């Protein structure tokens, strides 16, 4: 029987199998941020251990950092302490550190793929669930907990139970004005937030293959919002073209050798998946969410479901979510007033997202009452915005570009949406309080965000 792409990568990295237990899996790349790592470093210290392979770990602060005045000391003492602790730990244990203001600083899931630290066939981990982003070029990337972070530090390996495998095919072509984020939100809405629990997903089909590498990163990033351990895409020419020449990517003869290996990375014809799901690309509209989990999504022209159409067991949480959002069952959200727009995060903080947003708003003006936070995913994206003239176009339209970081995606820094306010956000989570206590999040792609920023309302970008 043939093997799936996931199996090929997983099997290659098995160091040992625990009898009737998990597998000890070798880890090629480990990313560390300031929130989930300090206790692991402390654990190492308590056990008097050093890193087994310090050169395979990269530490980058991103969750807490301010998005203005990054050249000054961090104001919030607790955030400052976490960031300083990461820097001290990196120094003490001898690992690479891209700190605040460093040209390679930014959200880890944006920096990794863009610098070529994330490569096909790797096993990649980070103490952060959106690590699944790094699977997009054909790698097995897993979000792990802090105990597991400590395992990687000590033993360059973790204990994992092999997930089941699911293939999600999206056939056909996406309609104009519909992008990777819409595809992802559509899939999650169909699958529900628990629908892929226990599975590692491989995305395939014409519409997936047609995505750019950055679109693929967006799609894979959101895999975990349906409960999956991760989601990957078989590498192809799009992948190779994207990686070639990136700073940490192999060069010269090493590149040729790596490429030859990567080209074999695909699921065999006769590989069997534990579950197969198919969607049609033409069914996908620009998406928005109306509730408090990413599965509560709908086409922008659709209406919120009626209570009766919800499974009885889920009605209480459905009503609770709508109460929180201030929406009613059966309501259409088109024309609804919004207060904030957030462009950024590891989902939509890449250069293509900024290009799409800028292209859309070019020559128009931001609605004066809307507060727009445009936060590049990394220093490199910020730089590129400037070089490509996007910053200037944005400024003419009344927008200001902030400095990179996770920002309002989880509001650990100052970028909090005030209670009761509506934010159209290109991030990945609309949980209660995620973007600030009482904040009401409507998830969407960059174009819906751009249309909202101009009109101050939820607007279909195709009819703007």
């Amino acid at each position: 029987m043939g093997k799936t792409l996931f199996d090929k990568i997983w099997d290659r990295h098995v160091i040992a199998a625990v009898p009737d237990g998990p597998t000890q899996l070798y880890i090629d790349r480990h990313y560390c941020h300031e929130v989930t790592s300090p206790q692991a470093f402390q654990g190492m210290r308590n056990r008097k251990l050093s890193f087994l392979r310090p050169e395979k770990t990269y530490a980058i602060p991103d969750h807490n950092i301010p998005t203005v005045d990054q050249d000054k000391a961090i104001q919030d003492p607790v955030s400052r302490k976490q960031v300083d602790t990461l820097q001290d730990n990196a120094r003490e244990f001898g690992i690479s550190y891209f700190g605040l203001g460093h040209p390679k600083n930014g959200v880890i899931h944006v920096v990794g793929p863009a610098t070529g630290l994330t490569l096909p066939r790797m096993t990649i981990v980070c103490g952060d669930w959106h690590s699944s982003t790094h699977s997009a070029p054909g790698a097995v990337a897993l979000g792990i907990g802090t105990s597991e972070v400590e395992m990687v530090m000590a033993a360059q390996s973790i204990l994992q139970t092999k997930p089941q495998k699911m293939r999600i095919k999206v056939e056909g072509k996406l309609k104009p004005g519909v992008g990777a984020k819409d595809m992802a939100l559509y899939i999650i809405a169909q699958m529900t937030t628990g629908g892929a629990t226990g599975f590692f997903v491989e995305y395939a089909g014409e519409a997936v293959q047609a995505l750019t590498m950055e679109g693929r990163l967006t799609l894979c990033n959101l895999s975990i919002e349906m409960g999956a351990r991760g989601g990957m895409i078989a590498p192809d020419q799009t992948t190779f073209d994207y990686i070639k020449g990136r700073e940490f990517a192999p060069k010269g003869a090493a590149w040729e050798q790596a490429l030859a290996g990567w080209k074999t990375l695909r699921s065999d014809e006769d590989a069997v998946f534990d579950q197969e799901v198919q969607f049609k690309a033409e069914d996908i509209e620009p998406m928005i969410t109306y509730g408090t989990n990413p599965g509560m999504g709908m086409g922008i022209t659709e209406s919120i479901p009626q209570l009766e159409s919800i499974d009885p067991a889920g009605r209480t949480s459905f009503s609770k979510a709508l109460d929180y959002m201030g929406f009613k069952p059966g309501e259409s959200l088109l024309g609804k007033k919004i207060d904030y727009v957030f462009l950024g995060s590891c989902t939509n903080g890449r250069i293509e997202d900024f290009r799409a947003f800028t292209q859309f708003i070019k020559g128009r003006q931001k609605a004066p009452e809307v507060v727009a936070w445009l936060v590049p995913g990394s220093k490199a994206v910020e730089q590129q915005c400037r070089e490509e003239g996007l910053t200037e176009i944005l400024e003419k339209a009344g927008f200001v570009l902030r400095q990179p970081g996770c920002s309002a995606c989880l509001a650990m820094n100052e970028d909090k949406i005030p209670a009761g306010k509506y934010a159209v956000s290109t991030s990945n989570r609309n949980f209660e309080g995620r973007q600030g206590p009482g904040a009401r999040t409507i998830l969407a792609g960059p174009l819906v965000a751009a249309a909202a920023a101009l009109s101050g309302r939820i607007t279909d970008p195709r009819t703007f």
Partner: protein
Amino acid sequence: MEKFITLSSTVVPLPIENVDTDQIIPARFLKATSKEGFGDNLFRDWRYDNKNNPNPDFVLNNPLYSGSILVAGKNFGSGSSREHAAWAIAGYGFRVVVSSFFADIFKNNALNNGVLPVVVSEGFLQDIFETVTADAQNTLTVDLEKQVIRNNASGREEKFGINSYKKNCLLQGYDDIDFLLSNKDKIQAWENENN
């Protein structure tokens, strides 16, 4: 890690579905650099109003309910991978969480911190909610050795699953890093072959 063999306790019922990690421990409490103190902020936004007054309607503030077993609705622990959620639950003093479904990563994080997640059928779960609503003093017994959970009020019992490696770790109070490091030569062998 503390050993876990069997436990009988009253329970804290939380009959809400899809409790995500942001509810268990809101992101603004993730800034600590040690594992201590998270229990104080468990379910913070449900437990306290925005003036930091305890919300009398929330179960953790209800003097009737206490114990080291938390029983929650389906799909507990979804959301982010933050292990802080497991620390908050462990820090508060829970050693067992019972639900009819858990998010994967939460289950792992809980086990790594000495908290046993017990998956029961929806019927068994509702049975627990009914018996503890009727009398808050009713208890559950969790026997890890036999992998059996018993509702002592109704007499209903159910087997639960756990992988034997994790089971052993809990029974012996033994941890993963001890195991991984015992395989150092195999790690080296893997690298020699693959690099």
